[in-house]
C-alpha cells in the first residue's frame, strides 16, 4: 500500500524504532523564541548539556517585543528581562538570533519561510503551536512544549508516536471574494476545534492547488485551531518557485537534487487516510467568528446563533457562555455588529500578500472615526517590502497605524492590547476570552474583511463597500 505525504516525511526521519516505544524522530530545523525557551536553556545548563546542532537552531524575538518605539529600551521590565535572557542564551550556546532592530527580526513563522529555511520534506518544530504554518511547503511541522524544546536542543530528536492522517479535500474553485482565511475558518467550523485531534491534516484538491504559498501558510497555520498537530500541502511548482533564490534555498546541483526529491512528496494514489473530509469550495463565502473559540464561526451573511440551535448540552452551555462574554444577542445579523478595533497582522495574516490585500481595500478610503486600526507586519522584511510598495502610505492615509514587526495584538503579551469590553476584528488565529487583552472581544476575519470592517465600522466584506 502507498504512503501519504505525512507518512513519507515521517519515515524519512525515523532514527530509531522499537516495539512499545515511540519512534525517535530527527528534527531538521528548530525555531526558538523568547517565551517558551528560557526554562529549556536553564534545563540544559543544570544538566551540563550543550545544543547538539546550533546550525539547525534559529532564534527570533517576536512574542514580547513592542511594535512602537522599537529603538528605545523595552518599557515593561518583565518583557525586557525575557528578551535579555534569550539574548544571553543565544550567546552562551552559540546560536543565531534575530533581535529587535534586525531587518530579519519578526514572527518565527514568517521568518523561516521568507529566508528559504522552510523546505519540503523537512521536520520543523518550535515551542509554538502555530509551527503548523510551515506544513504549507510539504514539511512536517508542529508545535512542542518547553520540555520538548530542551529535548530537541540537547538531542536534535524527539520521541513521538506517529500521528493519524486526515485528508481535507477542497473541490472546485474558491469564489473570487473568498480567501484562504475564509476557507480555513469554514473548515474549523465544520470539523470543530477537536475534529483534527491526533491527526496531521493534508489539504488537497483544486482550491488548494490554486492558492499562493502565503494562502497555503494561512491554511496550515490554523490547523491547530481544528485541534490538529500539523497541516500539510504537497509541494508543487508554486512551492518550488517560492523557495528558489531565497537566502537558504539550495543552489546548483543541490537545487536539482532537492527538486527531484521534493517532487516525490505527494500522497500515493493507493495510500489510505485514517479520515477524510470533503469541502465544496464553490459554496463558500467570507467567514467570521462570532464566539470564543475558532470553531464558532459563520458566513458573514449569517446572524448570531442562539443556544437553542445547539446539538447537545455541552454546546448549549458553550454558546451561552460565548454570547455573554462577547456581548451579543441571538438573531443579530453579523454585519450589524459594530467594531472598535481592527488588527491586521500575526503569523496567520501578517505577510506581504495580506498587507497588499488589506491595502487594496483601504486605498482611497478612511478608517471610520469610531475605529482604531493597527497594521503590524509579520517581519522586518515584510515591513521594508510594504514600504517599497507604498502600502504604509495607504494605511496611514486611511488613518491606520503602521507599526513594527512582532506577534503584537494576536496574543497581547506586548503593550498592544485591545481594551476591556472593546470589540476587535482581527486577522489573527484565536478568539479565546482575553486573548487580545483582558476582557477584549475578538472576531477572526481575513485581511480583506478586516479592511472593509475598519472603513464601515461594523463587520463587513469589500462587497459591502460597493453597496454602501
Amino acid at each position, binding site marked *: 500500500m502507498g504512503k501519504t505525504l505525512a507518512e513519507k516525511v515521517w519515515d524519512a526521519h525515523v532514527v530509531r524504532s522499537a516495539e512499545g516505544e515511540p519512534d*525517535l524522530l530527527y528534527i531538521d530545523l528548530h525555531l526558538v523564541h523568547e517565551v*517558551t525557551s528560557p526554562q529549556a536553556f536553564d534545563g540544559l545548563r543544570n544538566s551540563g548539556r550543550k545544543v547538539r546542532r*546550533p546550525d539547525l537552531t534559529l532564534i527570533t524575538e517576536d512574542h514580547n517585543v513592542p511594535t512602537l518605539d522599537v529603538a528605545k529600551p523595552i518599557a515593561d521590565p518583565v518583557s525586557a528581562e525575557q528578551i535579555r535572557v534569550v539574548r544571553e542564551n543565544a550567546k552562551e550556546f552559540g546560536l543565531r538570533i534575530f533581535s529587535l532592530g534586525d531587518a530579519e527580526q519578526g514572527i518565527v513563522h514568517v521568518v523561516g519561510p521568507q529566508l528559504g529555511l522552510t523546505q519540503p520534506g523537512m521536520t520543523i518544530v518550535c515551542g509554538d*503551536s502555530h509551527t503548523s504554518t510551515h506544513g504549507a511547503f510539504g514539511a512536517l511541522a508542529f508545535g512542542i512544549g*518547553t520540555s520538548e524544546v530542551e529535548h530537541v536542543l540537547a538531542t536534535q*530528536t524527539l520521541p513521538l508516536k506517529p500521528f493519524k492522517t486526515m485528508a481535507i479535500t477542497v473541490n472546485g474553485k474558491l469564489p473570487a471574494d473568498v480567501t484562504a482565511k475564509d476557507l480555513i475558518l469554514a473548515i474549523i467550523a465544520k470539523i470543530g476545534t477537536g475534529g483534527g485531534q*491526533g491527526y496531521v491534516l493534508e489539504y488537497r484538491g483544486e482550491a488548494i492547488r490554486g492558492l499562493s504559498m502565503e494562502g497555503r501558510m494561512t491554511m496550515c497555520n490554523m490547523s491547530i485551531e481544528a485541534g490538529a498537530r500539523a497541516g500539510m500541502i504537497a509541494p508543487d511548482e508554486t512551492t518550488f518557485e517560492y523557495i528558489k533564490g531565497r537566502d537558504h534555498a539550495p543552489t546548483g546541483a543541490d*537545487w536539482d537534487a532537492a527538486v527531484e526529491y521534493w517532487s516525490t512528496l505527494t500522497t500515493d494514489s493507493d495510500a489510505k487516510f485514517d479520515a477524510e473530509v470533503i469541502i465544496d469550495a464553490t459554496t463558500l463565502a467570507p467567514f467570521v467568528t462570532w464566539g470564543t473559540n475558532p470553531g464558532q464561526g459563520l458566513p458573514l451573511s449569517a446572524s448570531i446563533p442562539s443556544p437553542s440551535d445547539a446539538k447537545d448540552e455541552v454546546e448549549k452551555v458553550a454558546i451561552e457562555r460565548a454570547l455573554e462574554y462577547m456581548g451579543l444577542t441571538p438573531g443579530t445579523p453579523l454585519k450589524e455588529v459594530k467594531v472598535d478595533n481592527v488588527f491586521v497582522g500575526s503569523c496567520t495574516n501578517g505577510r506581504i500578500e495580506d498587507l497588499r490585500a488589506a491595502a487594496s481595500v483601504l486605498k482611497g478610503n478612511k478608517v471610520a472615526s469610531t475605529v482604531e486600526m493597527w497594521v503590524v507586519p509579520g517581519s522586518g522584511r515584510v515591513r521594508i517590502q510594504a514600504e517599497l510598495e507604498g502600502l504604509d502610505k495607504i494605511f496611514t492615509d486611511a488613518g491606520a497605524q503602521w507599526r513594527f514587526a512582532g506577534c503584537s495584538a494576536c496574543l497581547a503579551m506586548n503593550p498592544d492590547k485591545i481594551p476591556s469590553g472593546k470589540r476587535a476584528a482581527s486577522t489573527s488565529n484565536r478568539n479565546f476570552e482575553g486573548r487580545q487583552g483582558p476582557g477584549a472581544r475578538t472576531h477572526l476575519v481575513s485581511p480583506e474583511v478586516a479592511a472593509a470592517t475598519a472603513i464601515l465600522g461594523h463587520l463587513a466584506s469589500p462587497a459591502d463597500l460597493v453597496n454602501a
Partner: protein
Amino acid sequence: MEKFLTHTGIAAPLRRSNVDTDQIVPAEYLKRVTRSGFGDGCFASWRKDPDFVLNNPGFADSSVLVAGPDFGTGSSREHAVWALQDYGFKAVISSRFADIFRGNSGKGGLLAGEVSQDVIEKIWEKLEANPGTQVTVDLDKRTVTCEDIVAEFLIDDYVRWRLMEGLDDIGLTMKHVTTIDEFEKTRPAFKPKVQ
C-alpha cells in the same frame, strides 16, 4: 521527575468545554523565565469571578480537576501544565484533551486521564452535590474512583510507564546517541543550515 502511582484528593468540577491554555494561564504570566511560581496565574482571569468553582471554599484545596471536552486547546505553552501543578493539581480528567497539552502533561508529571463525557457528567453531579468530595486516580489500574463511580481512563502506555517510573526523556534518548550520529551522516546535503 517524581513517580506517579496513585493520588487521592479533592476534585473540582470545571463545567466547561474548550478550556484553552489562554484560560489555564494567560499570556501575561508567560514572561517569567523561571520554571516555578505560576500558581497565581492558574485560571487567573476566571478566578476574578467569585462564582468560579475554585473560589468555592469546598473546592479551594482541589488536586484533581474534572473538565469538559477539548481541555488544553490552543497555545503550546507548557506553562499551562506548570500553572496547574503549582496551583496544586496532580491530575486532570477530561473527555478529550488537546494533543500538545496531553504531551506536555506527560513531560511535566501531571496525569491527563481521558474518560467518556457520560462519566464526566456523573462525577460533576457528585462533586457539585458535595463540595470537598475526594477522588482517587490510580495510574497502575488506570481507574478514577468517585464514591460509587469507578471508571477506567485512557492514557498512553508509554507515558504511563514513564510517569510510574518518574523517568526523564532526555536521559532515555541520550542512550541512543550513536544511532543519532549514524542517522545524521545519511542526511541529504541540500538540507538547509542556519549558520
